[in-house]
């Protein structure tokens, strides 16, 4: 069933299991004690950062499948994507598995888009189980989107820090566990922000758009949720999001939390907080789902945000189009 841009999952696909892998810097923060695997060093025993990212992603996928108690043969489909060109980490991780792979690219909102797509297939009865996973690595993102690591340049105060980490979850049919009850598909929004260091400001309008449409389509209001969880807006973007939604008559300031804002222990030196596909993936698949299963949060709106730019587009002076997909998680 669909209303507006929101799909309602009548059979309520459940999150059977989840797993998260995080880097050393991330492990010092809130997710440290919840993550399944903590990297000892950011190379993860590999020779390049790209290989390390790929290995993190496949570790998260394998762990999630293992924790669900299913065999790899029981998995019907894998949805995955990442930030690197041609989503190489996801495709290269997928070659380790015998189940089908559907690659998705939605920048940092890959986690929520893949949950949305996976839930749709599970809900429709087309597949029994679906794995959704994504990840990112600071060093590989830095060299693709910005400068070589050793270049001595300053970070502007608006900048964010790409999270090293990966997270994955298994969707299936079950009476127990967290259910995905509905999801709102995002629209691409572009308010003309061109500053590639200010992703929070670029993505906030997309997040506000999706969150407000979710409220309107489902006739809910912010107080109906225990948590409204955005992906990687950072401190600055979160402030802007609260202003934008408040302007439309929805005050989310009481229960809004941003993964990027909470992931690092000290926000000061990371400036606005974390970013990257791995940011929302690790926080959701460790801390948030753990707390939901413990009954602390009963209803969470998870709206990860993505900036759909490339180095070519920003080099040509284009502004940054952004997107946000939301899924509602309930227990």
């Amino acid at each position, binding site marked *: 069933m669909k209303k507006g841009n929101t799909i309602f999952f009548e059979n309520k696909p459940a999150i059977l299991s989840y797993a998260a892998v995080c880097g050393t810097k991330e492990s010092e923060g809130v997710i440290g004690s919840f993550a399944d695997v903590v990297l000892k060093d950011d190379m993860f025993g590999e020779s390049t950062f790209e290989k390390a990212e790929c290995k993190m992603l496949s570790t998260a996928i394998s762990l999630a499948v293992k924790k669900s108690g299913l065999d790899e043969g029981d998995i019907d489909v894998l949805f995955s994507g990442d930030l690197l060109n041609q989503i190489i980490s996801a495709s290269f991780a997928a070659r380790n598995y015998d189940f089908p792979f559907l690659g998705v690219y939605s920048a940092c909102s890959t986690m929520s888009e893949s949950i949305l797509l996976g839930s749709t297939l599970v809900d429709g009865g087309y597949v029994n189980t679906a794995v959704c996973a994504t990840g990112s690595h600071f060093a590989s993102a830095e060299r693709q989107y910005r400068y070589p690591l050793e270049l001595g340049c300053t970070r502007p105060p608006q900048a964010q820090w790409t999270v090293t980490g990966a997270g994955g979850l298994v969707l299936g049919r079950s009476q127990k566990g967290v259910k995905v009850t509905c999801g709102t598909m995002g629209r691409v929004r572009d308010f003309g922000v061109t500053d590639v260091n*200010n992703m929070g400001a670029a993505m906030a309008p997309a997040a506000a758009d999706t969150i407000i449409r979710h409220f309107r389509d489902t006739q809910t209001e912010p107080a109906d949720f225990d948590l409204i969880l955005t992906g990687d807006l950072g401190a600055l973007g979160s402030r802007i999001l609260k202003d934008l939604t408040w302007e439309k008559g929805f005050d989310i300031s009481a229960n809004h939390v941003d993964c990027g804002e909470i992931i690092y222990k000290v926000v000061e030196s990371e400036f606005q907080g974390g970013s990257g596909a791995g940011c929302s993936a690790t926080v959701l698949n460790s801390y948030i789902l753990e707390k939901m299963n413990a009954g602390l949060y009963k209803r969470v709106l998870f709206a990860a945000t993505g900036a759909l730019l490339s180095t070519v587009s920003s080099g040509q002076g284009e502004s940054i189009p952004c997107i946000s997909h939301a899924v509602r998680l309930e227990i």
Partner: protein
Amino acid sequence: MTAKPRENSNQNYLNYVKTQDPPTKHLNNCVSAFLVGGFICSIGQFIRYLLEYAGLSGDELAGATSIILIFLGCLLTGLGVYDRIGRYAGAGSIVPITGFANSVTSPAIEFKTEGWIYGMAAKMFTVAGAIIVFGVFSGVIVGLVYMFV
């Protein structure tokens, strides 16, 4: 959003974002740029004195000084120290010749994973290439102008 013309709402938003920008620490930035920049130049002066003492002069002296500074810049980049200094000093470590060395060395180290020829060698001047291009071009123009004017 639909009520307002698209361009207008964009401009409103951009103006609003500007008001939300976290403040740049102008004074801190400038003081550290001045101190680090000045310090690197003093090291240059020190090397100049040493070489002068060793008996060099003229073009040889200037060339040897910059070679030593560039070596130091490259070495600190390789050791992973220069980007630390850069984060703190900003322009203070970018503008001196050691910053040029850093901008040549960092892509060379970074992209060697993509092969020695297309990675390390071809991408060595991704950042510093512009300096060579504009430098040589403007140098030729200056030469020609002096020749014929």
